[in-house]
């Protein structure tokens, strides 16, 4: 089992990186099903479980920062247990989901803990140290690889039941709390943008954008277009004012 577990861990590490970087989508369960099936010597079962898990995760995509149960670990653990235990695909799903939810909580934690590293990056940027910036990005990749490889290796190596008890020992409110915090987190990024961009003369446009989204539920593209319309009006009004008279304007437009 050691060799198989190591190979599966290797695959989990690679596709764990692909989930956010590369995005060739080899991390989807339909692909993982085939690969884990090959490793464990049962391609057909792997394909069937992978396909089933794929359909379940189809609606669960990372929309705008809201993270669904982790598709990488869901696919890898689900397929591996399904083949090892010899259960129906639906049972494999039951095993996969709690793992996937727990791992997503850990990912939220990782995204939080990686924030302080950005201050190091600021310093590198100030020193125009491009190698430093590159190292920070490679560090992120290495951590993701090790993290996913470990998470996939341990439960397969230790056995399904043992691992399930560990996951269940984490109180639900901690998982919920991390997920709630993950939802609120974008507020900090937006506040940082406001700190950079906000001037008193621009507050009205901020209010317009907010009202369009909050009350009228307009998509962001529509809001950007309305912002663009206002900006164009503002631009040409001011330009006219500075050019003294419409005549010159007509001439420049003609050229």
């Amino acid at each position, binding site marked *: 089992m050691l060799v198989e577990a190591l190979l599966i861990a290797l695959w989990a590490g690679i596709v764990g990186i692909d989930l956010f970087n590369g995005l060739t989508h080899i991390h989807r369960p339909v692909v993982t099903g085939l690969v884990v099936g090959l490793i464990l010597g049962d391609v057909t079962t792997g394909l069937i479980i992978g396909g089933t898990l794929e359909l379940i995760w189809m609606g669960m*995509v990372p929309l705008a920062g809201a993270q669904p149960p982790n598709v990488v670990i869901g696919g890898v653990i689900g397929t591996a247990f399904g083949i090892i235990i010899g259960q129906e695909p639906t049972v494999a799903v039951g095993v996969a989901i709690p793992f996937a939810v727990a791992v997503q909580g850990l990912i939220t934690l990782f995204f939080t803990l990686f924030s302080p590293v950005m201050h190091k990056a600021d310093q590198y940027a100030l020193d125009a140290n491009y190698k430093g910036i*590159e190292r920070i990005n490679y560090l992120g990749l290495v951590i993701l690889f090790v993290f996913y490889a470990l998470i996939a290796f341990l439960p397969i190596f230790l056995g399904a039941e043992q691992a399930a008890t560990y996951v269940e020992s984490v109180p639900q409110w901690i998982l919920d709390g991390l997920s709630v915090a993950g939802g*609120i987190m974008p507020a900090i990024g937006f506040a940082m943008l406001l700190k950079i961009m906000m001037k008193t003369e621009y507050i009205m446009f901020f209010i317009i954008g907010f009202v369009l989204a909050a009350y009228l539920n307009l998509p962001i593209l529509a809001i950007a277009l309305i912002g663009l319309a206002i900006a164009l009006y503002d631009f040409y009004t001011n330009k006219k004012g500075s050019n003294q008279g419409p005549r010159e304007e007509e001439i420049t437009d003609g050229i």
Partner: protein
Amino acid sequence: MESNAYQDLTPAEGLSGKQLRHLVWRSLLLQASFNYERMQAAGWLYSILPGLRHIHKNKKDLSTSMKEHMEFFNTHPFLVTFIMGVILAMEQNKEDRNAIRGIKIAMMGPLGGIGDALFYLTLLPITAGIGASLAIEGNIFGPIVFLILFNIIHFGVRFGLMGYGYRMGIKAVAKLKEGTKLVSRAASIVGLTVVGGLIATYVAFNVGYVWKSGEAELAIQTDVLDQIMPGLLPLAYTLLMYWLLKKGRSPITLIVLTVVVGLVGAYFGIL
């Protein structure tokens, strides 16, 4: 007041097709250093870095540019190459830095939304649906068909948009030569309108608590808060964060605070 212009204002030599293609490959690591404080910022800087080094031979300018590209950034990872193209064209022409920032922020929000709709809600379900239906039959071509279909479009979009964005940026920059101040003002207007919309759309802050008294039920979120104003909590929380930042609190403090809010809220079943 701080100057918003680069020291060396001579437009730089253009980027070759080969250089642009190299940057597209680097854009695959856009989210390598993803985190809640800056999201994709360091990965964004990583993606355009060889371009910036080509453009800014003046070390002070390179440092200024790199520092500003470490600011918060988040968009759809497939469409980012379009923004890269436009921004590199602006950098190459040594545009006003406020204008560069404004354009970058004005584009990242809408492209994020478009990308989600196009790729995660359309392309992925269609191609993965085809692949999964074959795989469930035990057909080994399921995953293969999925990967080929998905990635032809994926990489087509990435490479296509880089060149398109760059050419468009060069053209637009030439047109907007006069009045960079006005352009920068216009960019700030679009940027702030979008940020206002982003807060209402993407900050998920809801109270799940329902107040009960005998027969009467009062859902705090839908019956009270939404009646006062939809998006009240996201706006209030963002402004609180803004205020704390202005007070000099570090973003890390705010992140820890937010995690605590989430945990406490979940523990007491309020959020």
